[in-house]
């Protein structure tokens, strides 16, 4: 069954959830803006776009996000996992500030602080509400 407190592996899965989604979106955005405008008259260009490096990496990261998100939902509550996904926005903002040297407004710093405090609140509590045995548990039972 599930564990109210998470193991280091499970924290790593949550970190993957937080990191893969915003990085995947960023790669898709970067890839799509480098392409010429795509119209519905030539839908084949949209298929070809999938095989360009930035978009391929973005799709790979989003597949990684979905796999780790489903894994996390199998042992933690939705209301526990979702703040972790929001924490990805903080990671992207901090990368933009310290790696790309973007300017972050006071409003955005306030957003970063609020999300960090919110995630901290959730992380200190139990990850799962006790519930009846799952399908896998019933199959394991003698």
């Amino acid at each position, binding site marked *: *069954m*599930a564990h109210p407190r998470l193991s280091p*592996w*499970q924290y790593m899965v949550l970190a993957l959830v937080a990191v893969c989604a915003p990085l995947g979106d960023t790669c898709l955005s970067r890839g799509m803006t480098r392409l010429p405008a795509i119209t519905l008259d030539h839908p084949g260009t949209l298929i070809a776009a999938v095989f360009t490096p930035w978009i391929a990496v973005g799709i790979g990261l989003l597949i990684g996000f979905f796999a780790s998100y*489903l*894994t996390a*939902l*199998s*042992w933690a*509550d*939705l*209301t*526990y*996992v*979702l*703040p972790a996904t*929001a924490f990805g*926005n*903080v990671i992207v*903002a901090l990368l933009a500030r310290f790696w790309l040297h973007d300017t972050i407004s006071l*409003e*955005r710093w*306030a*957003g*970063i*602080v*609020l*999300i*960090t*405090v*919110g*995630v901290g*609140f*959730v992380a*200190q*509590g*139990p990850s799962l*509400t006790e*519930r009846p045995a*799952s*399908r*896998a*548990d019933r199959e394991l039972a003698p």
Partner: protein
Amino acid sequence: MTIPSTALQPSPWAATAMIAAIVLSSTAGEVLTAAAMKSIGDLDEIRARSGMKGATRAVVTCPLFLAGVSFLALAFFSLLFALNHLNLSFVAPASASLTLVTNAVAGKIFLKENVDRRRWTAAVLVCIGVYLLAH
């Protein structure tokens, strides 16, 4: 919350309906997916027992998961439709932050999750934080 000015600006009611479509379909998708994963059980344990193929089969043969993915697809196309009429700087923060709150409510009602004061506080803080960060 103000609606951005665009060449063909939809009415506030139309904009509200577009955001509501994203939020409701996204919430339905998240809740159904979460319910599916809870009914399947710990994926790490299934993978250890039946390998990656067994874990994948357990997920993709679950009707709740298929229903959840359908709603998430609907949310994605609702987002694309909204982006065609409204600015990203309005749609992204509004839908992302509202979805956090509706998910907390739906998690308590439909998934019977223990959404205590700690989780409500976190949902509200993260909701405001996402809005500030994305706005």
